[in-house]
């Protein structure tokens, strides 16, 4: 096969026991597979278990039923091939930006000069050159989120799990960061699962969009985005069919909603 599957969910179900003792099914029978270099977005109503899927992908908790596989190997705990990024930048306030980017490499015991070289290269790429010795509170929200993205890429993961990474940013900063991300994902051929509420963001950044239902979350639809310029978000945004896709998604989200009423 030309394009190996990098991350796969096989019939994954996750149940929690809530504070009141009742069982809550967060996600139910979810199966999806993402091939090498593919970017897949996941959209759905709030509380539909998108973040639960992401946490299982990064090995932070185990599925109740089913398996998650990364590069064909069952995920049994956190592993080096997967890195995640959240809406919160999670930068450590006592570390400089460079030290924050180095966090993963430092935990994994990579040589200090090597991780420094790598961190500086990433900061250069994300337009943070000159800020490497600043502390997080000295940077704007967009710059902090860029630093978080650099930290995520610094461990050279096979798979990126991004949970609404840009949803707290203003519209313009968001577009710039989306462009940076899209270019990086294309040049590095990173396999990515991208969770978002923003339908246009999903269409602009992805090869495929998956639609989830309300809780218990199931994947109710899959849309292939047949548009050029995945590496160039500004070019892709100009494409007239963007509107068609977002309209289709808007309708689908209503269907997903009604299916459970």
């Amino acid at each position, binding site marked *: 096969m030309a394009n190996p599957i990098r991350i796969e969910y096989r019939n994954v179900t996750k149940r929690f026991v809530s504070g009141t003792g009742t069982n809550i099914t967060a996600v139910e029978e979810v199966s999806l597979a993402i091939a090498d270099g593919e970017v897949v977005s996941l959209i759905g109503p709030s509380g539909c278990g998108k973040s639960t899927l992401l*946490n299982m992908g*990064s*090995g*932070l908790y185990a599925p109740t039923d089913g398996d998650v596989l990364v590069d064909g190997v069952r995920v049994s705990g*956190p*592993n*080096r091939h*997967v*890195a*995640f990024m*959240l809406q*919160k930048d*999670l930068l*450590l*306030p*006592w570390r400089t930006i460079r030290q924050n980017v180095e*966090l*993963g490499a*430092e*935990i*994994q015991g990579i040589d200090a000069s090597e991780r420094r070289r790598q961190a500086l290269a990433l900061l250069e790429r994300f337009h943070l050159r000159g800020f490497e010795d600043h*502390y997080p*509170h000295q940077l704007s929200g967009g710059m902090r989120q860029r630093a978080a993205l650099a930290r995520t890429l610094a*461990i050279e993961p096979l798979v990126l799990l991004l949970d609404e990474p840009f949803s707290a940013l203003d519209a313009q900063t968001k577009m710039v960061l989306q462009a940076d991300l899209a270019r990086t994902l294309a040049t590095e051929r990173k396999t990515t699962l991208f969770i978002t509420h923003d339908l246009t963001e999903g269409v602009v950044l992805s090869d495929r969009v998956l639609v989830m239902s309300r809780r218990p979350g199931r994947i109710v639809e899959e849309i292939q985005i047949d548009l050029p310029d995945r590496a160039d978000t500004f070019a892709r945004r100009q494409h007239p069919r963007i509107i068609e896709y977002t309209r289709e998604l808007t309708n689908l989200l209503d269907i997903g909603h009604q299916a459970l009423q």
Partner: protein
Amino acid sequence: MNTPALGRGVVMASVGLLMAFLAIWQWVPAMLNVPSFILPPPTKVWSETVRMLGTEKLLLHTGITTLEVVVGFVLGSLLGLVVGCILGVSPKTELVLSPYILALQIAPKVAFAPLFVMWLGYTVYPKILVAILIVFFPVMVNMLTAIRTVDPDLVNLARSFSASRWQIFRMVEYPMSMAPLFSGLRIAATLAVIGVVVGEMVGGNKGLGYLLVFGEGQGNTAMVFVTIIMLTLIGIAAYWLVVWAERRVLHYLPRAQHTMV
């Protein structure tokens, strides 16, 4: 330590307030016919200070009390820090030890002073022991709650980089707890003085606590005033030392988050 722009006005206001306070203390009680053996005016407190420096070895007693405060504060804080960390990372240990910790926390620590004097005699040790006991709790409790309330997403971030339990503690939980730790140390610095004074009042013939009891026996109000002022000065010095250390350790926080009191 204020910002230069504020400096002049703030200093003027401080000095003005002090002058007004001393003037009221000097003349208002006399106008209201309060006898000076009940409320000695500042001039009398000053002359008593000079007398005590000569005939009562005021500096020696102050030095001994200071030494006890410093040793008690340092040992009590270290103990609180270590125990707080252990209980913070191990909820099971906390559960097992909680009844004892709670009992010891609720028991008025100064009530132990006579017991310690009976055990250890008229030495510096019972005073230091009371200080350790009274300093221990705010430090321990602040450290414990700080570790427990670290953002779980930060811990998950470290876990996703395959961090060990020790790495999570060393690189995330412990540094994240520094700000609450210093709030505890500020409280502890003032409590240490209380612990030492109570110990000195109960037994022995050295230290400012002893001078308090001696002055009371003599019916010398001015002497008690001088002693209280010296104790306050020790407390202020200890507190400022903690604030100074806090600024150095938490240098990465924005300026506005640092306070003097």
